[in-house]
């Protein structure tokens, strides 16, 4: 069956707008990568600004784990409501905190191909090739083994590699799931322009830095995303994974940091960047 439908039109501006930001005590809270929701069978990522209409007859599966020490997120899972014939898994990897994802989605998919082709009994059914995943340019690879047929479609948004991982026992169903992604829609961030994504911005541009208390120096990696406002102040701090106490201490310290204002084509622009506390980059 063909599951793809023109979902872009079906995603109302109202439903999208509601997810871009939320009000908490009068202060607008900016979305973080794990902030996703489903409304009227449309899976919406506030942070990444995409919307995906889930195929008819599919519903949400088990939620995944919390974000990892390397900034890895399980954004959503879906399964057929009736017969268990396939799965959809959507994940995101922050490229700031992993060396093997920072050189572009093409290289990421090629490395994935290398790993999967070395698996005993695994067949590469479709070599990595550029595709359009809805509004986004990306790469796709198909592979199969032990009776399971799989596709991975990868795109890059806001310095994250976002992948849609499709699995089915039925190649036809797999094809239809892949087609359903043709309608992956993007929408504008109502909170304003998406900040420019710059790796290692902190080390080169911070003017005033206070170290947080209580951050274990060597036992864990604590990845943090920071949005720097046009005037060089810190607009948003996202402590991706830490204890509650560490989170509080880091947020309190980083909010006091000051940066050189960033200019993009001569005009002040917001910057989104990452910094790691503790042990440094995680292995995984």
């Amino acid at each position, binding site marked *: 069956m063909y599951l793809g439908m023109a979902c872009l039109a079906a995603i109302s501006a109202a439903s999208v707008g509601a997810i871009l930001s939320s009000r908490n005590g009068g202060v607008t809270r900016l979305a973080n990568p794990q902030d996703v929701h489903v409304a009227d069978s449309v899976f919406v990522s506030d942070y990444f600004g995409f919307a995906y209409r889930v195929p008819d007859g599919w519903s949400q599966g088990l*939620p995944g784990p*919390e974000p990892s020490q390397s900034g890895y997120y399980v954004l959503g899972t879906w399964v057929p409501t009736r017969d268990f014939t396939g799965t959809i*898994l959507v994940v995101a990897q922050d490229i700031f905190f992993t060396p093997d994802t920072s050189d572009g989605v093409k290289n990421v998919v090629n490395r994935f191909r290398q790993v999967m082709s070395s698996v*005993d009994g695994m067949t590469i059914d479709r070599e990595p090739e550029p595709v359009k995943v809805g509004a986004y340019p990306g790469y796709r690879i198909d592979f199969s083994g032990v009776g*399971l047929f799989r596709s*991975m479609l990868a795109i890059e948004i806001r310095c994250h590699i976002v992948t849609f991982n499709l699995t089915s026992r039925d190649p036809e169903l797999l094809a239809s799931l892949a087609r359903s992604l043709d309608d992956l829609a993007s929408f504008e961030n109502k909170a304003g322009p998406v900040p420019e994504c710059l790796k290692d911005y902190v080390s080169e541009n911070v003017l005033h830095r206070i170290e947080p208390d209580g951050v274990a120096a060597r036992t*864990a990696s604590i990845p943090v995303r920071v949005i720097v406002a046009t005037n060089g102040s810190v607009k948003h701090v996202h402590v991706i994974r830490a204890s509650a106490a560490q989170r509080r201490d880091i947020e309190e310290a980083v909010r006091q940091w000051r940066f050189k204002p960033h200019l993009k084509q001569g005009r002040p622009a917001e910057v989104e960047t990452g910094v790691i506390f503790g042990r440094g980059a995680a*292995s995984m």
Partner: protein
Amino acid sequence: MKTVKIARAHALAGVASMLLGSVAWPTDALSQNNSTARATNADASSNAATANVTAGQQSFGNNFGRSPSRGGGTDPGVRGGAPGAGGPLQGLSDAELQYFNAAKDVFQEVDAVPDGLGPRFNLDSCAGCHSQPAIGGSSPAKNPQVAVATAAGAKNALPSFITANGPIREARFVRNPNGSADGSVHALFVITGRSDAAGCNIQQPDFAAQLARNNVVFRIPTPTFGLGLVENVPDSALQSSLAANAHQKRALGISGHFNINGNDATIARFGWKAQNKSLLLFSGEAYNVEMGVTNDMFPNEREGDPNCQFNATPESVTPLQPENTGSPAANYQNDIELFSAFMRLTAPPTPATSSTAPVAQTTGASSLATAATAGTPSQTTGSTSSSSTASTLMGSATADASGVMTTDAGSPTAQSSTTSTATITRGSQVFTNIGCQACHTKSFTTAKSQTTGQSNVTIQPYSDFAVHDMGNGLADGVTQGGANGNEFRTAPLWGVGQRVFFLHDGRTKDLNVAIQQHASPGSEANAVVSNYNMLSRDDQQSLLNFLRSL
């Protein structure tokens, strides 16, 4: 204790209990790991409630929350025949072999109160806990805690979670009465009433009340076979391995990280949460926590009642006069050093050969040899699936050393070695394809070793020794070092073919159930379990047969 020799005799037995060990104490007492309690820890009460379930009582279905459309394979059961473990490493020198044998003797000793047992304890010997399928292993089918509860005149009541045919368990309380985090072991038994503990009158914890509060979680002994080799895998190899298949992990919802030791910032790798840095630490902690024997590493009694203190502390120390053992080196070693030596010099489990591997089989499994040879799926047709559904599974079968299986009905069914090899080969392929090996990493190579013949040895533990979020279904709410209440170390699968109980709390004897229990809200294993549940019945069976061959 004053009589070191006696203590030693009993200390060996205590080593067994260290497998259980993975207490919060090492973290606190030695500052081994700084606590990095995660903000996302599951609610303690729900964790505890989850841990209280027994085999298969709580299941989140399979993958991503839907019931599997196919039933799953049948666990062939504990592999019979000779234990493929328990002996010394191959290639040891004569002196090392003597040392191993002396250490193994100590590992089997049974302690009484004059030797240091108690005041609170879970068992009185190391080997009592670590005995399946051989000395050094995991929980046996018959629980020795039942007998020890009333040994030597003790009047201990058996907590409801300790049964004659259930797993050996230690109990931890998730929270203190004031609501703060606990997580430590609360020993099951006391020495009160024992003939060698006159005047001691402490009581057992009120487990019934704690169970009613959903405040009790359990752990079973972990096997110790081959751990010296694991200890000698360089950190860099573990880190490289975790990074090497990161791309595959990301496509499966898997991340994981190591439990880093707070003292030297290296990877801790022993215990259910990888909370123990070394075998010596593992030994010392278990000796005190599981058996109540204070030692050079954990020198203070956990129970403070002066009426129950019968020995000078530490009760087990390095002997100043040589003891008469079969090993000159062992004559001056304290108990925990010898426990460590036993684990360090014990060989890893040996996988079954095709002639000894038990396999359960579906009627459609005759195609397995062809499928495995050709590297093609065996289930891709609907006819195969339907035949699987109608198949007669040789479930709960056991095999003797000749590979003859006995079914539930008791009628032996000879499995040809060709079929056995085919299904195990296919199972290995399935294991890799669906993503099990993303965490249950097959092999590592050791560094240069002080032990004869153990340098640059390739081992197959089937673990990445990282900790992973296993979801609400397995969460115990206990934080140890860098492992939070949802996280557990990837359990090494070597020797799993001869294990009786599975998962950290021993909630099931059924491998299929153990696989399904990997899936629950928040688990990194959800996608892999989904893949398992989408397999053909034949391939599911092959996977289980493969696991029972390890």
